[in-house]
């Protein structure tokens, strides 16, 4: 009898059944989330299945944000925002406004997610919550609308792919580089139907804001979830962030003899900064292979790399400098709180002085409809998570994905630049070092 993975333990706990990978369960969900794009369809399903007795199973843990078409980029989007507001008011859901931030960031900042929780979101990047030791997974609106009513959902218990990185990350290599490397190695569908577990000494050393990056992009290899086992750092982070002292449930720790689909091991020393070429995240290469590629736009933000620590790394690089000629930079903080920290620490001024555009918190051009979309032939280097054809605008545009450090260094030269050619910083979680960072 082999041991269990985090996913097997967590779904056993939440279903009350002793299950292994491949089995189907109905499990009790702790937190549910939707937003202005997937929300209206979710609400229709909820009202259809509940009929005259419509009530949310857990209004305090039902969260709705307005982040995708935010601020409204047209009348239809504005009307959808009103549908969100009306639904939240009628049923008592927790609603966040335009400018409050991206759903995944808001849920973490506002303390909705604890280690060991089962979290579903009608957004594919709901895998993000694995960064604090929760099983987060993206679902459709029918899934979510029915779960709004029942508090339960069906799951296939996933197999697990484990990624282990040992040693100290070299200069210029961040969590973003690790996840692009993983995706490049296993492929865009390499983790489909499975959970990615991340472990090893280099991963243990990561601050929470970088752990969230690894979990966030698990979906870019098809992952159902991307989980790091929570530890003391997770507890400290959540206490500083939310003022609550949380426990680490035993079902968040994998057994030593757990059965994995495969284990991929890396030595941190061997790794270089990564860039994913158009038009798929799996096209990851060492930065040297694309160095010198001319760029038109830089985009700093998203649920992947729009946190204060990410934006600060870029600001440190461009402080006192001007963007390279003929390059524009769009900065979109992941939340209002990030926006506020940018103001309080002078980072906002750094961007404005360098010639960048700083916008209100939300998904920004990663949703491809507003706030800096790309035209025909435009080339963008982004801290984002997806570079599919047309993802940030024109089908004739191209997007390269990289870490904030690579984007910051490239801003100075107007072409893809090795971040190791400039002075770089690495930050612990801002909430743990506030005042000293």
């Amino acid at each position, binding site marked *: 009898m082999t041991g269990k993975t985090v996913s097997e333990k967590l779904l056993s706990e939440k279903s009350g059944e002793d299950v292994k990978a491949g089995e*189907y369960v109905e499990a009790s969900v702790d937190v549910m989330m939707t937003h202005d*794009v*997937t929300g*209206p*369809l979710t609400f*229709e*399903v909820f009202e*259809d*299945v*509940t*009929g*005259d*007795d419509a009530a949310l199973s857990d209004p305090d843990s039902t969260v709705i944000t307005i982040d*995708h*078409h935010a601020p409204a980029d*047209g009348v*239809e*989007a504005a009307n*959808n925002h009103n549908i969100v507001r009306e639904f939240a008011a009628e049923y008592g859901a927790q609603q966040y406004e335009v400018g409050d931030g991206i759903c995944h960031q808001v849920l973490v900042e506002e303390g909705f997610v604890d280690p060991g929780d089962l979290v579903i*979101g*009608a*957004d*594919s990047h*709901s895998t993000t919550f694995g960064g604090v030791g929760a099983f987060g997974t*993206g*679902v*459709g*609106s*029918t*899934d979510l609308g*029915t779960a709004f*009513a*029942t508090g339960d959902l*069906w799951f*296939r218990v996933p197999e697990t792919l484990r990624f282990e990185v040992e040693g100290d990350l070299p200069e210029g290599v961040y969590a973003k580089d690790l996840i692009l490397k993983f995706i490049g190695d296993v492929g*865009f*569908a390499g983790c*489909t*139907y499975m959970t990615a577990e991340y472990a090893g000494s280099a991963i243990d050393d990561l601050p929470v804001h970088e752990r969230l990056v690894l979990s966030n992009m698990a979906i870019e290899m*098809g992952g*159902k979830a991307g989980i790091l086992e929570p530890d003391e750092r997770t507890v400290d982070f959540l206490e500083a962030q939310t003022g609550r002292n949380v426990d680490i449930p035993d079902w968040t720790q994998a057994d030593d003899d757990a059965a994995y689909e495969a284990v991929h091991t890396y030595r941190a020393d061997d790794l270089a900064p990564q860039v994913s070429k158009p038009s*798929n995240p799996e096209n990851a290469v060492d930065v040297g292979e694309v160095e010198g590629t001319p760029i038109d736009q830089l985009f700093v933000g998203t649920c992947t790399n729009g946190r204060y620590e990410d934006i600060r790394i870029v600001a440190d690089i461009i402080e006192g400098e001007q963007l390279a000629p003929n390059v524009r930079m769009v900065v979109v903080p992941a939340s209002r709180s990030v926006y506020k920290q940018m103001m309080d620490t002078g980072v906002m001024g750094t961007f404005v002085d360098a010639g960048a555009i700083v916008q209100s918190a939300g998904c920004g051009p990663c*949703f*491809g*409809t507003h706030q800096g979309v790309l035209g025909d032939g435009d080339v963008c280097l982004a801290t984002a998570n*997806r570079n*599919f*054809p*047309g*993802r940030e605008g024109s*089908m004739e545009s191209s997007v390269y994905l990289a870490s904030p450090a690579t984007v910051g260094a490239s801003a100075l030269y107007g072409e893809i630049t090795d971040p190791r050619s400039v002075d770089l910083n690495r930050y612990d979680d801002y909430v743990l070092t506030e005042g000293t960072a």
Partner: protein
Amino acid sequence: MSDIDTTEPGRAWLFGDDIDTDQIIPSRFLVSSDPEELGEHAFNDLRPDFAENVADGDFVVGGENFGSGSSREHAPLSLLGAGVDGVVAQSFARIFYRNGINLGLPVLICPAADRIDDGDEISLRLEEGTVVNHTRDERYDADPLPGFLQELVDSGGLKPYTKAKLGTK
């Protein structure tokens, strides 16, 4: 949208590997949740002739990892709205597959889907897990749904299943 009968032959519309949901329904059309309206923009940028020419009862055929990327249920909904009776692919991305089952859009994993050409007439036998290619006079094995999911489909999808559970009138 019409009643789905996968045993009636329909035209196969062929798409390749890694077709993500941005390609199935681009983000600028997500301001609507109406299947018919979404259907008018299915594959809008990738294959503009699709929405114009697709007929009720046609099928979409994909390669590996069909429906990857965003969780938007608007993607399978747009195909239903366009009149598509089912999607056959060598493999599916997880959320699209799940959404298809929940919505009652037949989704069939068929490793031999690459034998199908654009424009072939095909039909599906869901219970047996068979794809019939009428143009080439061939039959391909597909994975029948696992028991739990077949139960869900038999009860009409996740909505009727949930209604029964809640006792909703």
